């Protein structure tokens, strides 16, 4: 599997660390809503199809990426920096199909 890092370009999955479901919403730090915390820590959509997920390019630029990947075909339809303010560093656009 290749993931197109917006900074480093297409790289082998061996350079990346999977950081899980990107749909999870962390409650506000001071939140005492235990259900919200439980949902954040333990509940997963786990879809068979397109999945929003977070990957770290740990063996490269170490940036975290928001990736949309199909869990049935492993096809990656987009990969972008997790933080919005890295735009200036971007060189590579995800090629749609990786």
């Amino acid at each position, binding site marked *: 599997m290749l993931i197109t890092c*917006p*900074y*480093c*370009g297409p*790289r*082998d999955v*061996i*350079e990346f660390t999977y950081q899980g479901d990107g749909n999870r919403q962390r409650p506000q730090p001071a939140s005492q809503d235990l259900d919200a915390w439980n949902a954040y820590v333990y509940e997963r959509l786990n879809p068979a199809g397109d999945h929003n997920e977070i990957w770290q390019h*740990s*063996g*490269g*630029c*170490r*940036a975290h990426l928001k990736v949309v990947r199909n869990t049935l075909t492993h096809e990656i339809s987009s990969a972008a*920096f997790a*933080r919005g*303010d*890295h735009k*200036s*560093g*971007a*060189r*590579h656009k995800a090629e749609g199909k990786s």
Partner: protein
Amino acid sequence: MAERQSPERQSPERQLPEHLSPLEPALHPGSHGNFEHGVDVILSETKPGSILQLAAWPGEEKQLISGIRTVTGLTLPDGAGGGSTNGVRSVFGFAPGKFTVVDEAEGLALAFADVVTPAIGTLTDLSHGRTAIRIAGPKAEWVLAKFFAIDFALPAFPLGAGRSTNHHDIFAQIQRTGADQFDIYVFRSFARSFWKALCHASEEVGYEVQ
């Protein structure tokens, strides 16, 4: 391979002992491996005096790049992973807003102290933390391709450019400093293991250690 020049020692720490190389016991100058058919790569440790990491806050990248130019005289080409070298100093981007700057001389951190202000970003001195290994020669790409899953061909990896990548547990930053020359920066603690692996992988093509 660039001749090792003796740079002006602007460092105030001239009296310091020399850095002890982590490669020392495993570095055996001379020709090795299948060299009867010619030496196709040359391996060496470049021992730069300064290896710095400069990192800009989002939006401050241009400021930092201009600061790098002021201090080193090196211009960074546009785009991710861009870099340049003049044989004495080198610079390349390795992550969004982040750059590695290398100088043969020690003390480069001091020169940057006033340039990388807290408003622009941060400076981290890694002069001791990274070991610089140079591989040069017609088979340099071939040997590196054994370790790293990146494309070393010139069009994909232009002169001066930098890449961050890894070989299993060993993280590496690589800069192309010549048509068939690469400088590899690895964590010091892994350097000896990586060096041995690099020598082993070079046996097939014949290599010389300088």
